[in-house]
């Protein structure tokens, strides 16, 4: 029996890839929406495993921190709080099947085009991307292109996110007049003069 020397990476690749596809299928096939979101999270984690195998460890960790640690938590919250009858929603699923198939087919052919370009023209990846240096870690490599070559796009993306954040805050900010809130600077700024008042109280009269 001859086994290739790089068996382990291959084993892990098929493990991660297989799990990823299976989880993605379970996301749409799951009966319980919370289970669907949990499968989605598992799919993200497997995808980040694939990134690690490709040597893109920075992207892998960012995928987990951002998507799994923050975005999917919000998904999970929303799905847990909503009381939607998903069996009722599922009834019209055959109606949407043709649209789904069309989207799927277009997506498939686009993927074929991307991968095909790679195979047909081996120079393509070098033409569209900066070559990955081997002497520095890929975090540094990413930083070097992100903050030099693509700095304006990076800043623009940051601005878009800032606007989105401010928009979300403005949409949800409400000043309710009857709600009592603790204002710590007011509390700290209180002095004896503003907090206390000395009155002469006559016996039997009160204030």
């Amino acid at each position, binding site marked *: 029996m001859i086994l290739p020397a790089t068996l382990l990476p291959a084993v892990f690749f098929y493990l991660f890839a297989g799990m990823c596809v299976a989880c993605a299928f379970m996301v749409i096939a799951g009966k319980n929406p919370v289970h669907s979101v949990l499968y989605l999270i598992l799919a993200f984690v497997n995808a980040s495993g694939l990134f690690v195998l490709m040597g893109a460890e920075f992207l892998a960790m960012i995928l987990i921190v951002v998507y799994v640690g923050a975005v999917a*938590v919000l998904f999970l919250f929303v799905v847990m709080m909503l009381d939607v009858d998903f069996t009722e929603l599922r009834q019209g699923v055959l109606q949407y099947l043709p649209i789904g198939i069309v989207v799927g087919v277009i997506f498939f052919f686009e993927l074929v085009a991307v991968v095909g370009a790679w195979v047909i023209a081996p120079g393509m990846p070098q033409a569209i991307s900066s070559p990955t240096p081997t002497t520095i870690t890929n975090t540094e490599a990413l930083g070097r292109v992100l903050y030099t070559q693509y700095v304006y796009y990076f800043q623009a993306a940051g601005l878009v996110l800032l606007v989105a954040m401010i928009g979300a805050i403005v949409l949800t900010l409400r000043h309710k007049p009857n709600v009592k809130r603790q204002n710590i600077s007011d509390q700290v700024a209180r002095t004896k003069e503003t907090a206390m008042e000395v009155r002469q109280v006559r016996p039997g009269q009160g204030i």
Partner: protein
Amino acid sequence: MLEFWTADLWPLIVIVAQSLMLLVILLVSIAYVLLADRKIWAAVQLRRGPNVVGPWGLLQSFADLLKFVFKEPVIPSGSNKGVFLLAPLVTCTLALGAWAVIPVNAGWMIADLNVGVLYIFAISSLMVYGIIMAGWASNSKYAFLSAVRSAAQMVSYEVSIGFVIITVLLCAGSLKLSAIVEAQNHGLATMIGLPWLSFLNWYWLPLLPMFVVFYVSALAETNRPPFDLVEAESELVAGFMVEYGSSPYMMFMLGEYVAIATMCAMGTILFLGGWLPPIAVAPFTWVPGVIWFVLKALFMFFLFAMAKAVVPRYRYDQLMRLGWKVFLPISLAMVVIVAAVLQFGGLAPKG
């Protein structure tokens, strides 16, 4: 076949053996960390603490383990059984997984990842799932309320921990945990010409505000008192694990304490110079680095335990205010200040 043996199988066996050894050492240490926590708490309140099982109560944690394991696990009939049992496993596995990258001495770690800090950060951001899953699967409103508030708390404090990590990274110039420790060989002490005072080299001094922010955020992130609103027995019966008993409950508790130990180790690596000796002269440099690491981590844990014993519990709106209105602006400003000082002071690490 020989190639397969040397390239694949042997490294795999070595890693599995190392991991098992780490797990055994870690779990035994956690048993005593738990005991130390109870003993410190008791000492502050002028009690004796656990003192019956074994000499000075040293076997108390193992007695607790046996008690948990031999109890009957009760699964509520209305619960979502799969998720209900998965939640404690997720908590426990993730907490233990973080220790794969923690260097306790030069070269003493299972994997020296290039992105070690991010790995630990990612794991601690995943810890929230154990809590949400447990809260939801229990099918109880108390458990769910507790899970919701705890998840919001953990997500909030992750933000400031992220910024703290960024300031340390700016100073060290690497995401690798061992490189961060090595970078603390040079600093204030070497600058003022007293290289033997190596404890001044560590980042706790130049980044003191961030050390404080890290310590408080770590308390909140691990749901320790004074931020243990998850458990808040005065308002929510016993938090998200109210429906859990026996071994599943034990796994939650184990995961919680391992996460605390991870945070102590993180504090040691980022701010207290990891395995480096505090004074770089002869008798101190002879001591193995792992002993310094453990001593520093225990010091961090002592701070955690004292906070539990001394500080009363926060109210939820105060907790959110502290995270978003105090720590976030401070840490954001510190990132800018540290970056500016490093850049214009010519101190930035060459990379």
